[in-house]
């Protein structure tokens, strides 16, 4: 006779990560027909740009979306890059295994991070169309690998079907995903806008986009230098938890806990370690494998009592003022552009981040619901995290909240009508996303404050520009008025006095440029 518990646990078994996500596709951004398509494009393009940058290559990306048959919701997405290719044996891991990758433990800023993205796309393709994802890749060595990848959901593994090798002179990776239950639209949430935003934040990237109707758009690059690669950064003691510490202990090559602290954390010196030992009462000479949860908790609470230098920010790679301005200029051809990259700050005690903001006024700037040609209809807020566009979930995002918290009238604009594009990029090894969909930044107080200040920085510059513009127009109007009436005054005065008409040029020069006398005396 089985116990009740045995009976109840009969069905108990391990789920694979892939299976978990198959059931929770929404968490990855696969919700709704338009959003799902944009998410696939996002995952592919993110990987492509990251790969090219890793290899120090100027990214050249082509995205094509094609109809497969009569069904408008049955599409094929092709994303091609010019990076260094993927070694054959890694293909099933990259495209078929969740939480595999090189990025998670590096404590380094990158677009992707968790090794979920492109696998999610493969999985979504497989779930909706039943078709494998085709990967074509080459390191440029004359050999091209073609492979169809299917995911074995139970085992969290990729499986290659129809693998073959071709000869050819080409370098890069091309991914073809066949999707159903998606819809192409040229809206704010569709791939077109996504790629346009990507081009703004990545002015070194050239993106070619082919829409289902065959229309081809090239988002040309605005700069020719590949951004310097971010460097991995060791975690700051204020940013680690007891759990992190135990994880580090399990991985480290150090032989003592003291050694672990110095080699795995930033801003740790021998003196600081001694201080940690004294304050925590933990024997730091013990082996890392002997570190207990209690020890870890004591060490973490000792960290909080010690003064450390601010976390290193050398690993962060903002776009930079100049490139943001170039990107905005290239894409929007505005009459005014200004951008700022703020100094690094820290949130939650130890996680460094940088906020960048850019503003564009006039030209193609501003929200354009009715397409590129219509008049602007007010503020267009474009959000980025580590250069990747955030298109969805704007409502709760710290960037949206910060932009809304500003009294724009003080800066001389009505955001309901002004042709204004506001750009914000949050850079961090750990961007505080609100969910795994990574479309919205959490309202961390330090992050919110910093975003707000960055926006105010650029808004101030805009105000200065608009003010100058108004002044210049006023000066012109002034000059015109005086040029009309001063000669009349001179002629009539001469007629009254019975003398020759005097030269008015010196007076005109003086009066047309100076402050309005009426206003100077006025309130």
């Amino acid at each position, binding site marked *: 006779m089985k116990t009740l518990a045995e009976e109840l646990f009969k069905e108990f078994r391990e789920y694979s990560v892939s299976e978990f996500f198959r059931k929770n596709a929404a968490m990855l951004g696969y919700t709704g027909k338009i959003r799902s398509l944009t998410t696939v494009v996002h995952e592919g393009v993110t990987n492509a740009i990251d790969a090219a940058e890793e290899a120090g290559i100027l990214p050249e990306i082509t995205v094509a979306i094609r109809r497969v048959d009569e069904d408008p919701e049955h599409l094929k997405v092709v994303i091609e890059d010019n990076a260094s290719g993927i070694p054959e044996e890694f293909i099933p891991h990259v495209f078929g295994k969740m939480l595999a990758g090189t990025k998670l433990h590096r404590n380094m800023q990158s677009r992707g991070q968790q090794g979920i993205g492109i696998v999610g796309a493969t999985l979504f393709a497989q779930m909706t169309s039943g078709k494998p994802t085709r990967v074509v890749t080459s390191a440029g060595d004359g050999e091209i690998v073609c492979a169809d990848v299917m995911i074995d959901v139970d085992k969290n593994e990729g499986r290659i079907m129809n693998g073959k090798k071709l000869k050819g002179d080409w370098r890069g990776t091309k991914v073809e995903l066949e999707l159903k239950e998606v819809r192409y639209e040229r809206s704010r949430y569709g791939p077109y806008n996504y790629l346009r935003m990507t081009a703004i934040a990545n002015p070194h990237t050239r993106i070619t986009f082919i829409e289902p109707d065959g229309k081809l758009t090239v988002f040309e690059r605005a700069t020719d230098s590949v951004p310097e690669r971010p460097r991995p950064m060791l975690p700051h003691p204020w940013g680690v938890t007891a759990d992190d510490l135990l994880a580090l202990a399990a991985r480290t090559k150090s032989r003592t806990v003291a050694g672990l602290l110095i080699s795995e954390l930033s801003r740790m010196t021998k003196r600081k370690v001694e201080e940690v030992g004294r304050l925590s009462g933990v024997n730091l000479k013990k082996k890392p494998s002997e570190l207990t949860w209690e020890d870890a908790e004591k060490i973490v609470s000792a960290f909080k009592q010690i003064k450390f230098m601010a976390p290193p920010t050398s690993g962060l790679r903002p776009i930079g003022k100049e490139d943001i301005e170039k990107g905005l200029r290239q894409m929007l051809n505005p009459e005014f552009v200004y951008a700022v990259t703020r100094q690094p700050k820290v949130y939650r005690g130890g996680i460094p981040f940088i906020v960048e903001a850019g503003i564009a006024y006039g030209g193609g700037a501003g929200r354009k619901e009715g397409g590129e040609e219509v008049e602007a209809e007010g503020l267009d807020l474009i959000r980025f995290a580590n250069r990747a566009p955030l298109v969805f979930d704007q409502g709760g995002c710290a960037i949206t909240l910060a932009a809304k918290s500003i009294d724009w009238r003080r800066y001389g604009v009505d955001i309901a009508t002004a042709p204004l594009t506001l750009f914000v990029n949050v850079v961090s090894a750990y961007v505080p996303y609100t969910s795994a969909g990574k479309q919205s930044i959490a309202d961390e107080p330090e992050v919110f404050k910093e975003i707000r200040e960055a926006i105010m920085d650029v808004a101030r510059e805009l105000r200065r520009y608009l003010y100058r513009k108004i002044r210049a127009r006023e000066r012109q109007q002034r000059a015109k008025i005086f040029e009309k009436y001063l000669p009349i*005054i001179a002629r009539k005065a001469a*007629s009254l006095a019975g003398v020759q008409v005097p030269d008015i040029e010196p007076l005109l020069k003086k009066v047309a440029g100076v402050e309005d006398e009426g206003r100077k005396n006025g309130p």
Partner: protein
Amino acid sequence: MKAGEKLQGFGKEVIGDILKARPPRLKIPSRSTSNIRYDEKNRYFVLGDKYGVRSAASMKQVKKFAQTMCVADFCRELIANDKFATLREMYYTAEGWETGPFRDQGESDAIVEDLEATFMLKREDLGLMPEEDGAAVYGELTLKEEGVTIDATKAGRAGYTIPPTIDDVEFLKCKAERVIAVETMGMYHRLVQEEAWKKFDALIVGLKGQAARATRRFLKRVHEELNLPVYLFCDGDPFGFHIAMVVISGSAKLAHINHELAVPDAEFIGVTASDIKNYDLPTDKLRELDIARLKQLQRDPRYNTPFWQSEIKLMLELGKKAEQQAFAKYGLDYVVKEYLPEKLGLKG
């Protein structure tokens, strides 16, 4: 100084500023009610010392400055050619000026007033005149206008018409000993018909309602040059009172030339509220407008005398008003036979 010289001086000043690259300015006495005060000593309204500056360096004012120059030069030409133009004629002439037409005649009239106030000139001095003639005068006065000698008893039944250019008219001979100015032309013709001018040795003047500048100027001149006392006979209502008061103390709007218009010694003889009562005149009820106006007058410094205060108070109490023709109740000649002799102290 003559008007022409003043304008020439103004032109020279502006030229001087231009040569020094200094924006020309014109200080114009303010004619807003806040800058008008009642001069107790002279018993008429005068301008205070507030003024506005019209600057050619102001974007908002430079056009008006140019228009002012145009008006000034237009006047210079009139004076030089010894001609007169009406304000309306000038308004139409401006259509051809470089500054463009005025929005309405009010705008051009205001600039004329600016020049009057600034240079302490009457518009007649500037060669401009209002459209309307002054009113009529009948009586034993001989005057010379444009070389023509006129006897005001031989100028037809309607009498001699006071021209806008009354200052150019010369008084030659006068047998009259007083002036009786009446509000309505109806009363004027009654007095002429009843030969009141002969009976009272008076010049009869018809004001035609609110007195025109020329009429007021005429009254001022006969009072000062011929030493005639002036008596005012108007309707017995707040508007009649005020027609008399403007002749006596001047109007707020023309405060800058009241010293040439006001006749502080002129005397209001009726119709008073007491007359309504004493003569038991036919009346109309006071309208709301009349009551409001009477209350306004009560607070007006010009009416701050025991006579006026008690008359206004009485009229408010009666709640009634009467026209000057109401005396016809007792016969057409009643005013001449009874009322006026009593009021003028000429009775038996």
